[in-house]
């Protein structure tokens, strides 16, 4: 037979403790170093090879014709450039891993909120 109400001392101890809940928008979250946050794309380093689009499981990357026609080192012109749809990206980090030029990075930032769809696409 157990005793009833053995939580009592713990309950009253919590009355004087600071509550555990973090009021997120006003108090900032402490994110660890390698946090997989919002995606950022370094356009200059990108050579438009399209490996990231091929490996993206959520199909959130799409290859678009490169308007800048940036010349690559070896005389050729970069034909297409990836466009990232952040509302579909699940931040798995496969593109970061498979990009040969390390052009994509997941930064330590949360809060992916936007009013228009355009804000959610990263060139």
């Amino acid at each position, binding site marked *: 037979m157990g005793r*009833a*109400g053995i*939580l*009592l001392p713990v*309950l*009253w101890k*919590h*009355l004087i*403790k600071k*509550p*555990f*809940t973090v*009021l997120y928008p006003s108090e900032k979250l402490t994110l660890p170093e390698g946090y997989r946050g919002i995606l950022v794309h370094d356009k200059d380093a990108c050579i438009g090879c399209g490996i990231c689009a091929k490996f993206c499981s959520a199909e959130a990357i799409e290859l678009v014709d490169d308007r800048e026609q940036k010349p690559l080192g070896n005389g050729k012109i970069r034909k297409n450039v990836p466009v990232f749809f952040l509302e579909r990206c699940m931040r798995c980090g496969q593109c970061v891993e498979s990009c040969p030029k390390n052009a994509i990075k997941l930064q330590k930032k949360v809060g992916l909120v936007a009013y228009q769809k355009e804000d959610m696409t990263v060139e």
Partner: protein
Amino acid sequence: MIDAVLAVFYLLVFPGFVFLGVYALLCEWIDRKAYARMQHRIGPPWFQPLADLIKLLAKEDVIPKNAERSLFQYAPPVALAAAAAPIINIPIWGTQALYSFQGDLLVILYMLSIPTLALFIIGWASGSIYPLVGSMRAVTMLFSYEVPMILACLSAGILSGSWSTSDITAHMATHPLEMLVLIPGFVVALFALQAKLERTPFDIPHAETEIVGGTLTECSGKKLAVMRLTGDILMLVGATLFAAIFLGGFVLQNGSFIFSGYDVTPLTNFGFYLIKTLLIVFILATIKTLFARLRIDQMVNFSWKYLALAGVFQLFIALGFVSGVKGVA
């Protein structure tokens, strides 16, 4: 003419409906805040109960197809009236209630059990299966916690030799030591009140994880607002009744506290009243945080095995005390 206006004022404003409503919402807030803080959470802001009430009043009031319309619509106001009415017979500041007569203790206890009957009618009249099961459970619980509660209150009456709450409080005020005799009765009454208000561990009729909303599943809009307000007022009136009977000792006699020429005792007594009721509400919140919900059969045999026995035991102590000590002294 004057006392007619005064009576309306008493009925509607001070110890009447407005004061009850505001203080009931305050009690609900303290209950929810203490519940949250004990669970290491922040808890609602002070205006949350008021906001809930206003939101519910604005919401659409749906009546299910196969419900008995009249019963379903008029049961909530009856419950609210029955819950709020006894406040007149219970002394709030000092030892004299607004209107007291011999036997008003029984009237109060009877009025306090009408909301449960109204809940049964609502559950039964709403015609769907979950409220039906919920209302059946509410009534089975009614039989099990009503007896210990009455026993506890009667033993207070026996000590002071009268059935009027005001006389009980007056007696307690003059002999504060007799409160110690009533301590088991106070514990029994608190558990019975927790069962009457259907709060964990006795919230079986509207056990949210088992039969969805229980008796109040089909209520919405104004009816739900009225029923929640009834629950709060019931808690407040119950707390006031037990504060008056069991903690009656903390009441000062008139004229014993003169402050710069004015007789300030009614104010201090009102302060004591606030402290007493908030203490009771806090104890109820602790009980709510402490236990898991009991099943209906466990609840019934808990109240018959422990509460009723404690009530009878308290009755014998009161009788023994009255005939023994008082008889000799």
